[in-house]
């Protein structure tokens, strides 16, 4: 809906003439009453305000500027010319700046008339109309803002998905090449004496290939095409087990607090990957706090996701409505601005001097692989909360699976990406 559509949307409902005029006096839109009274089209392009009133151009300009500046009711008598060129005694009863000037659009002033001979009993009506008008504008603006946010989120999701496809494809082909490199390096090593100079060189080739394989594994994780060794687990147990390691990782000066919901249901997760998620997020939180010290709180709880809450999620995995286990990591660190927040999960994006920018990209891939979601709440100077949402696994007894495990703790299966050469891939990725 354009700006003028928005104007007509509510102004046509009102009985008195209302026009939208640029601060330079050019008419832009007229409601139905104004169209009838002045014989104007809905969106006049050639008419000026001084075509409608018998006042000097200077006075009109002053009036418009005053209306734009005060953005409030600006009663002031201006003699209005009707369509038959007769003069009627009417006055502007309302003026206001509807849209501020920008580099590509001038300021727009909304003007409403009423007859001076109308009875004074219009103050109450006027107030109601004023409130109604501003409510319409407020609701329209809110709807526009919501649409803008949705568009922005969609663009962000599409960008991340494109990057994931690209990273997954590159990593996949890269792995195939690494398989050959590693295979031939192993063969060459068999033919070389361990004390010979070429042996050391080939060993270096092999080591570099293994490092490259690790990089490819992380890219595959980001793409959501990594292997998942799923088990039914309680996230509290996993978090508690990690406490010692996390405390070591964050160092002194930062307090780690656990706030775990004792009634947490089981979730089907790859424990190694979820450990990696927690570790990455906690280390990131510690880095955001830095030397000045602070607190990291790890919270688990249940969350009901519905269509409204999905809007707040940073990544879109088409989360179905239902129960989710939430794992929130809150820090009292420096927080993030919008630019950083939007690029946080992009591969190779990093705010650190050293860092490949794959840690959080891997978190995204892992959560995506678990059909979960991520929510970021951050404020510069006040800290950040990253919440991972993982779908609650239905009761194993009632789960509709042909090969459902007999007990929750024994459930252990592997999800492999369907690939013609997945065996090669497994050889290459250690």
């Amino acid at each position: 809906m354009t700006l003028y559509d928005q104007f007509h949307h509510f102004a046509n409902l009102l009985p008195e003439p209302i026009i939208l005029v640029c601060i330079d006096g050019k008419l832009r839109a007229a409601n139905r009453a104004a169209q009838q009274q002045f014989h104007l089209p809905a969106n006049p392009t050639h008419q000026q305000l001084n075509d409608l009133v018998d006042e000097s151009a200077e006075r009109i300009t002053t009036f418009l500027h005053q209306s734009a500046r005060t953005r409030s009711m600006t009663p002031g008598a201006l003699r209005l010319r009707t369509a038959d060129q007769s003069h009627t005694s009417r006055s502007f009863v309302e003026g206001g700046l509807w849209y501020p000037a920008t580099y590509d659009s001038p300021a727009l002033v909304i003007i409403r008339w009423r007859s001076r001979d109308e009875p004074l009993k219009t103050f109450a009506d006027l107030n109601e109309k004023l409130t109604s008008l501003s409510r319409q504008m407020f609701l329209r603006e809110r709807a526009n803002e919501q649409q803008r946010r949705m568009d922005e989120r969609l663009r962000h999701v599409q960008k991340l998905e494109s990057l994931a496809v690209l990273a997954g494809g590159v990593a996949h082909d890269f792995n195939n090449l690494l398989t050959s490199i590693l295979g031939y390096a192993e063969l060459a090593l068999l033919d070389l004496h361990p004390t010979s100079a070429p042996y050391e060189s080939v060993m270096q080739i092999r080591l570099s290939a293994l490092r490259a394989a690790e990089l490819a594994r992380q890219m595959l994780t980001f793409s959501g095409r990594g292997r998942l060794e799923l088990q039914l687990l309680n996230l509290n147990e996993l978090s508690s087990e990690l406490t010692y390691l996390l405390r070591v990782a964050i160092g002194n000066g930062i307090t780690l607090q656990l706030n775990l919901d004792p009634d947490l249901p089981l979730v089907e997760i790859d424990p190694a990957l979820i450990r990696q998620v927690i570790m990455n997020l906690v280390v990131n939180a510690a880095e955001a706090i830095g030397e000045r010290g602070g607190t990291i709180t790890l919270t688990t709880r249940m969350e009901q996701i519905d269509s409204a809450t999905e809007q707040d999620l940073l990544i879109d995995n088409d989360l179905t409505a239902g129960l989710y286990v939430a794992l929130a990591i809150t820090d009292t660190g420096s927080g993030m601005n919008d630019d950083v927040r939007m690029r946080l999960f992009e591969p190779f994006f990093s705010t650190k001097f050293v860092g490949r920018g794959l840690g959080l990209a891997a978190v995204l891939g892992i959560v995506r692989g678990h059909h979960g979601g991520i929510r970021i709440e951050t404020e510069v100077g006040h800290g950040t909360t990253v919440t991972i949402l993982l779908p609650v696994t239905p009761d194993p007894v009632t789960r509709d699976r042909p090969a459902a495990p007999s007990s929750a703790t024994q459930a252990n299966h592997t999800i492999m990406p369907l690939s013609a050469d997945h065996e090669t891939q497994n050889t290459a990725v250690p």
Partner: protein
Amino acid sequence: MTQHAITDVEIPLERDQFMRSLISHLAATLEDVIGVGDATGFISLVGRRMGDEINRDYCRALALSQLSRPDVTQVLIDLKRRIKGDFYVIEETDDTIVLGNRACPFGTFVTGRETLCMMTSNVFGVIAAENLGYAKVVLEETIARGASNCRVVIHLRPSNEAEAANGREYFKSRA
């Protein structure tokens, strides 16, 4: 001799007293002539202008383009303090500000003149909405209606609770 006696005589008349009395009589006359409903509407319109002006004054003085959520509460209290009201915070959440008031700036002239309360509603509403996007001001108790203190609830977000409350809504005037 007579002249001296007139200038020395005790009359409760000075500028502040005069202005308060004038406003009270204006409100009373309006109520009598055009009815309480339209008088309320008229004072609301004046209140909107006052709110806009006061908001601009505070923003200019603080060198801010708009006030933050905590600033708004402080400004509402402060503007009343400056005109001899005695407002205080009863309760504050992200969604609402609840203010109390022990003294009306109009003094005893406000009793029975509920229309004057529209000045508070509009000034508060315009300042809150211009800076935070939306406000609904509910005058739950007022000195004008005979209560010992005023109790003013300002909803800052459209919600079911705000919708159910009997008050006036205000919206940000700029896009």
